[in-house]
């Protein structure tokens, strides 16, 4: 295929994707509208119109942005901290048998204690300030990242390592120049999974103990029966999660697309 045609296909692909997303969301709001106005007909399930109007009001007052930024900041901090700890541990577990024997009980133990179950402990330890939330996000990130990183190291093809050895590579060169780059797609995929966990965790944590954030907004709206506010928070969560995951996938494609076509 000539180059100009290839570029053409790529471009139409992108427009098709964007068009698909827009249509998909429009459809979602339409179904919501129909369900709320003709099926449920309850004040407890408002149609999108009033919800979006309320959302716009909250944006104009600067309240919605404040909650979103509060939540996102916690996610970003905990996520980066968790990844920074999880990646080296995962690499060590994948590379050295004794480390695996030593640390696998830890990872296998803690990964079955969900972050949500740790909320009480973390509030007791860190109070209801930022630390408890960052701790929870980091906690939920670490184990997912460790496990996928370690799996990635284990999945490095035997021939890749052998090829390096018979080109004269020592242990450290095999690690740094072969095992590490070959593991990057696994690390990024683990981080993407961890990111969706982080969204679950932050809402739960803010519901229970926080002064701001989208979770807190949900809680307050329930207390004061502001049904539109609840839906504004839900829509905001969905859109934020969607946008974050897409950007992450875009980053993975940009950095690691040539590693592995399936990422």
């Amino acid at each position, binding site marked *: 295929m000539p180059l100009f045609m290839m570029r053409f296909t790529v471009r139409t692909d992108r427009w098709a994707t964007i068009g698909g997303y827009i249509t998909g969301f429009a459809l979602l709001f339409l179904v919501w509208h129909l369900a709320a106005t003709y099926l449920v007909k309850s004040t407890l399930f408002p149609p999108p119109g009033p919800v979006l109007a309320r959302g716009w009001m909250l944006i104009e007052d600067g309240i919605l942005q404040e909650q979103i930024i509060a939540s996102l900041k916690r996610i970003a901090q905990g996520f980066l901290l968790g990844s920074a700890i999880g990646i080296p541990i995962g690499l060590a577990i994948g590379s050295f048998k004794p480390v695996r024997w030593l640390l696998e009980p830890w990872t296998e133990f803690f990964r079955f204690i969900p972050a949500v179950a740790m909320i009480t402990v973390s509030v007791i330890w860190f109070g209801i300030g930022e630390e408890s939330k960052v701790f929870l996000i980091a906690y939920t990130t670490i184990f997912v990242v460790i496990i996928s990183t370690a799996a990635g190291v284990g999945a490095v093809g035997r021939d890749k390592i*052998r*090829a390096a050895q018979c080109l*004269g*590579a020592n242990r450290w060169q095999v690690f740094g120049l072969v095992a590490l780059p070959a593991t990057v797609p696994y690390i990024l995929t683990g981080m993407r999974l961890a990111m969706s966990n982080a969204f679950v965790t932050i809402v739960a944590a803010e519901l229970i103990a926080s002064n701001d954030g989208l979770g807190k907004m949900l809680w307050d709206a329930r207390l004061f029966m502001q049904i539109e506010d609840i839906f504004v928070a839900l829509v905001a969560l969905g859109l934020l999660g969607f946008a974050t995951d897409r950007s992450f996938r875009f980053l993975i494609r940009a950095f690691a697309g*040539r590693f592995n076509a399936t990422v």
Partner: protein
Amino acid sequence: MVFVTQGADVALVSLQGVGKTFSGRTGAWEAVRDFSLDLAEGEFFCLLGTSGCGKTTVLNMVAGFEAATAGSILLDGAPVQGPGADRGVVFQGHDSLYEWLTALDNIGFGLRLRGLGRAERREKAEHFLRMVGLTGQGAKHPSELSGGMKQRIQIARALANDPRMLLMDEPFGALDAMTRAVLQGELSRIWAETKKTVLFITHDIEEACALATRVGVMRRGPGGTLKAIVPVDLPFPRERTSDDFMRVFRDVHALIHDEIHGAH
């Protein structure tokens, strides 16, 4: 084809009574038994045998990937301890290429390990890229190359490291017949140019006869071993339809035929 070997005792590689027994859950399996072979500097030796007779096992021991459980393997008179840059390996599949590097950087990987500067590396890699007929394709990543191109890159990567010998495990096994014939021709040419010693594994009789200066036929396992060695004293490039070629082909075929249809 005339061969200059300075006396029989200067073999580059010498396998003496080499054996390999795998022990696993299903018990011990003697894959190779009493395998002896001397490879002279500069020769192209094809190891031919049916599937599962132990060819890869022999190559892995010479490469140093696996230790022999009996006998000894000497390289330049010193026992093989493990893999090293003196033995370049071309693997059967192309999983051994690094997807995150360009073709050129794959070729220059060994040079990078030795700390060569960027410019020098590039220049050498370009030279070997040309040698395997991929001029101008150096910026592509392995995912953008065909199967045949990937095998060319593997060969160039091994050669760029300037090893004493090349170990090749059915490098063209997964290619279509036409591509295989082309690559066989190029390998022959490269071998003549670089004068590397080659240990080449195949189960294709024609391929062995077209490339080798000697063909070693293996007896099937358990306890696979060298059954016979057929010298191929034909000039290069080989005329595959010539009577001489046919004669060699028939000789080798007869040896292999017994293996396929023998007691089983």
